[in-house]
């Protein structure tokens, strides 16, 4: 079959602004987009640059935008990718382009991955037995580690668009694995480090990452699981811990959220600067009778049961 590949060309030296080039190729019906790129480079234009390694969807190298949407070129049959006989190819949006479809994966992925210190400290040499671990736990670890760092979730992330320093869902998903690993001995240190600026608390849990993940890993869920672990251990930045504590206390005591109390307690009762920061918004809200008043916050009828659930969970998770 005949396809037209409309590719972004870019070369920082000779073609700084980038341009587009269309290649007309006669391809086998079952070819993937990556196959066609290789074919174009072999047969028509040796100067075309792109990445792609394993050709089967295990290495994460060939992420690019196919018709505007991030995909793995190796898992995209051309027959499905064609729109009116054409396939447009671009690098992902949030990356630094290097040449054509090649982009800087270091800055986008690998450096952030390394920053999460994803290794576990192996036991001193000479162990003769494996750790005893339940298969259920192993499945959880395998699911997290099936991430190939292809960057699709980062491409979808709503925070990275506005703040490139955010670790992003890919690195945080990989960081989840050692935290969930019963063989790891430094979980609290990990959670503290992942709580630093640009870490897990900067995630807005918008589930874009989950929607973008081609492996169904559910990166957003991994980040929420990291947070669940941190909440359980009272770990986070001071603001985050205060906020979470206040939120939980409010629900535990009354069954529902006391927002006025939450706002004040999140800033910290001794944090005068932070509390003053609330004043303009709060005053305006009061004037509009928008803000809830703390003294009006009443218990809900079922609150004793909510409290019971909370207490049981707290007891069990100890």
């Amino acid at each position, binding site marked *: 079959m005949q396809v037209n590949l409309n590719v972004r060309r870019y070369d920082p030296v000779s073609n700084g602004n980038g341009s587009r080039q269309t290649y007309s190729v006669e391809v086998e019906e079952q070819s993937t987009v990556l196959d066609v790129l290789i074919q174009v480079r072999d047969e028509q234009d040796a100067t075309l640059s792109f990445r792609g390694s394993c050709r089967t969807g295990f290495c994460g190298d060939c992420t690019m935008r196919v018709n505007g949407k991030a995909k793995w070129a190796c898992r995209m049959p051309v027959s499905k990718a064609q729109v009116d006989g054409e396939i447009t190819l671009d690098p992902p949006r949030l990356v630094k382009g290097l040449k054509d479809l090649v982009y800087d994966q270091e800055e986008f992925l690998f450096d952030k991955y390394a920053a999460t210190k994803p290794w576990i400290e192996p036991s001193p040499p000479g162990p003769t037995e494996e750790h005893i671990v339940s298969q259920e736990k192993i499945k959880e670890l395998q699911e997290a580690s099936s991430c190939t760092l292809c960057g699709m979730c980062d491409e979808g992330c709503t925070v990275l668009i506005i703040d490139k320093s955010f670790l992003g869902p890919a690195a945080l998903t990989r960081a989840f694995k050692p935290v969930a690993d019963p063989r790891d001995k430094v979980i609290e240190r990990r959670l503290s480090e992942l709580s630093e600026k640009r870490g897990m608390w900067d995630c807005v849990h918008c*589930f874009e990452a989950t929607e973008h993940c081609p492996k169904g890993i559910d990166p*957003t869920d991994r980040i929420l699981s990291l947070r669940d672990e941190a909440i359980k251990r009272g770990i986070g930045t001071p603001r985050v811990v205060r906020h979470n504590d206040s939120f939980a206390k409010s629900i535990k005591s009354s069954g529902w959220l006391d*927002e006025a109390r939450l706002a004040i307690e999140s800033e910290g009762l001794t944090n005068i600067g932070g509390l003053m920061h609330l004043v303009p918004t709060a005053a305006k809200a009061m004037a509009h009778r928008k803000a809830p008043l703390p003294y009006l916050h009443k218990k809900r009828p*079922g609150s004793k049961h909510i409290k019971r659930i909370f207490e049981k969970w707290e007891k069990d998770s100890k």
Partner: protein
Amino acid sequence: MRYAFYPGCVAKGGCPELYPAAIKVAEKLGIELFEMKDVGCTGAGVLSREVSDPINARTLAKAEAMGLPIMTICSTCQGCLMQANHRLVIDPEYRAKINREYLAEEGLEYRGTTDVKHFLWVLDEDYGLDKLQEMVVNPLEELNVAAFYGCYLRRPPEVVVPKGKESRKVSLENAIKALGGNVVATKGKGKCCGFPILYPNERNSLEMCGTHTLEAKDKGADAMVTPCPLCHLELDGTQSRAEQHKGKKINLPVLHLPQLVGLALGFSPKEMEMQRHLVSTAPVEEKAKRKAEV
């Protein structure tokens, strides 16, 4: 049409205008609401799911006992309840564990049959937007409205947009059209508003709020409408701070979905308690009112 009504915390707390507006609109449309009063917060993505799942299972079990589907008026409540419901429905063992460990003491059991629907989906799927259109007495013909969904009505798709329910992806725009309004298409409509990181990372949060409201404003929106009160807290409540952050005037009124419906059904802005908003809704009132006088 009868629903177990789960209003959520914010509709009575941070956005006290939402609850009365929703009650009035539902009554006018003939949607019968039975408010669930003795249930807990969904966790809103802040509580550990280990504790919010049992609390949500309790809510779902109570609705099941009432024999009614749940209606929410908050995307976040909707998402959290629905995600918890998903976990409880697909994994009967997990459900049994929660029943045994947390609900049995109260004599409750969740069997996994409760449906949870946001007011927007109730309008689109149960009530019908064509029927809604018939109820409109004050079509919002001059109003240019940008939709803003809130994350949890869109993602994760396998939970909230199952097969056969694809219209959920455009239901808010369709609702605006049914009310006579003009849809302003934006790229930000399905993105995060920024509310969840208002405390941990205010700069990023304000950047998001500013980006979304400015985009709508620049594309000619008179107002933004959202089915999520948390988005409202962000887009309305922090808009002035986002203006400072962006160094630009924005001044975009943000309406709750029931308020927009209410205006089209003939309620006054006062009845919809729009005076409680931090960003003045005067321009919206102007356009909506003028139409009503014709």
